[in-house]
């Protein structure tokens, strides 16, 4: 097996990594819809999904089955080729971009081959990510055009204009970070943020000298929300004006593909925000003896969540829930025990903090959607060109100046 791995590293090492990541990502996408519906429901004083499985936990599964069994309608006047290509393009590009994200500092060793945690570690990872996202606009534009229908065309036009405008601000907003780190490699961008001020405050780009990138983070996140066509920038699918915008004529699994693409880009943007501004997989605590106990935070967090789930689950409304929730809780406790083992404990640090930070960003995404009203189209364009872009250029100039002054 080791010889085979040495001869065909792509086949033996990369392929399983890709399959596992794809499986995890698709599951995460499904449960992100559940998470969003739950959070938005609670913001609006509702319960959200509750009937399918305990706390609606099987709702994503039910949705998936429903998408698969709905009739797949193609409009008679549609441009068939582009109509089929658009959802495929949207989803495949959105999923591909996750391939350059590094999930942790540790090198995995599979059959004697060392390989990074994440699929590809590229010198120009950030640029490749932007290249892939910049192609994402074709999915939306083609869907709008090929449906050969009024509302989709308007939605497609709107969102292509929006995505092109906000892409500028998005790209410019990260230049500050790149200038400070001096690299496009996402792993190196994270390791450049290693270290602590006064032994306690993490040296993340958000607050790092010579130029804290707070402005950069705000610009990046606003532009990224617009780039992923999410509320309050979801003018591409403003349901009060355009029915459902660019995907009005799509049904069944083709619609689901657009849906999955949107959630996948949300995850990518959260990963990117974490890597660029919040130190990626780095722990917020210094690795000194005083803070040695922080190594047990992952295990403790899983154990606490598992025990809470068991305590809550045994008193759940339905018999099904009284079985499923405690079992899930016990599984989490098992994970906690595994995370406490020597050897494993060091390995889980990176991915644990990384996932925690991503989840904070995903929550903010949903929070913003649940609380802010949609922009008007002229407001959107004015904001993008007259506020975001000038400020992002200002950020670049200020950061460059600060770096030059700090070197003297």
């Amino acid at each position, binding site marked *: 097996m080791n010889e085979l791995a040495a001869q065909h590293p792509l086949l033996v090492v990369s392929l399983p990594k890709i399959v596992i990541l794809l499986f995890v990502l698709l599951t995460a996408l499904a449960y992100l819809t559940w998470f969003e519906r739950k959070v938005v429901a609670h913001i609006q004083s509702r319960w959200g999904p509750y009937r399918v499985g305990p706390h609606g936990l099987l709702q994503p599964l039910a949705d998936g089955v429903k998408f698969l069994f709905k009739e797949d309608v193609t409009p008679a006047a549609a441009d068939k080729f582009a109509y089929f290509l658009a959802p495929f393009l949207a989803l495949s590009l959105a999923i591909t971009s996750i391939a350059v994200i590094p999930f942790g500092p540790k090198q995995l060793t599979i059959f004697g081959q060392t390989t990074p945690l994440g699929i590809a570690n590229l*010198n120009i990872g950030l640029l490749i990510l932007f*290249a*892939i996202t*910049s*192609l994402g606009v074709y999915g939306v534009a083609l869907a709008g055009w090929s449906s050969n229908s009024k509302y989709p065309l308007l939605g497609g036009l709107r969102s292509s204009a929006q995505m092109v405008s906000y892409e500028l601000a998005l790209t410019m907003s990260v230049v500050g970070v790149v200038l400070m780190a001096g690299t496009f490699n996402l792993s190196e961008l994270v390791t450049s943020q290693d270290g602590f001020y006064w032994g306690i405050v993490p040296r993340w780009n958000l607050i790092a000298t010579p130029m804290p990138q707070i402005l950069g983070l705000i610009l990046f996140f606003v532009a990224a929300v617009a780039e992923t066509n999410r509320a309050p920038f979801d003018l591409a699918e403003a349901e009060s004006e355009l029915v459902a915008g660019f995907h009005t004529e799509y049904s069944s699994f083709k619609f689901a593909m657009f849906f999955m693409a949107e959630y996948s880009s949300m995850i990518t943007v959260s990963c990117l925000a974490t890597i660029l501004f919040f130190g990626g997989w780095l722990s917020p605590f210094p690795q000194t003896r005083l803070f040695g106990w922080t190594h047990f935070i992952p295990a403790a967090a899983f154990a606490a969540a598992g025990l809470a789930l068991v305590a809550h689950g045994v008193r759940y409304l339905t018999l099904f829930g009284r079985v499923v929730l405690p079992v899930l809780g016990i599984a989490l406790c098992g994970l906690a025990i595994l995370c406490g083992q020597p050897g494993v404990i060091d390995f889980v640090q990176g991915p644990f903090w990384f996932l925690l930070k991503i989840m904070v960003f995903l929550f903010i995404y949903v929070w913003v959607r649940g609380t802010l009203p949609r922009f008007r189209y002229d407001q959107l364009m004015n904001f993008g060109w007259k506020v975001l872009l000038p400020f992002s250029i200002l950020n670049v100039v200020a950061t460059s100046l600060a770096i030059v002054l700090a070197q003297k």
Partner: protein
Amino acid sequence: MLTPQIAIFLILAAVAVAGAVSLILQRHPIHSALSLIVVMVALAGLYLLQGAEFIAAVQIIVYAGAIMVLFVFVIMLLNAGEEERTNLSRMARFVGVPLSVVFLAEVAFSIGRATSRLSAAAVTTVSTRELSSLLFRDYVFPFELTSFLILIALLGALVLARREGTD
């Protein structure tokens, strides 16, 4: 002797040529634009194969991600229909085919003559750092001059597009 590099080169080159041919043959402007995007992405792959990572990424970001989006946007906005055959385009079939064959032969001949005298260049990865220090230190004047030219073109387009009478 089919190394992976040559195999990838052949695949990308075939995709690029197929995209270019399809660009000419497609009747609908959107399909032509899509074919052009395929050509550009394949070219980016070829750059990557030569070790020019930065150029490859920029090729996709600028050409496929920005310029072609504008093409597609304008085609969508004008709702351009399929192109029609006119007398002139029928004539093009009789004159164009021999002319393009002659042109291709000419290009193939000159490339063949030029490469026979060249030795195979070693593929070296040009880092973004080297490239940027070349652009912003050694060739900063031509670089800025080019951006100035683009700015002038931009302003010109703006002036032309502005309607008479409005401020």
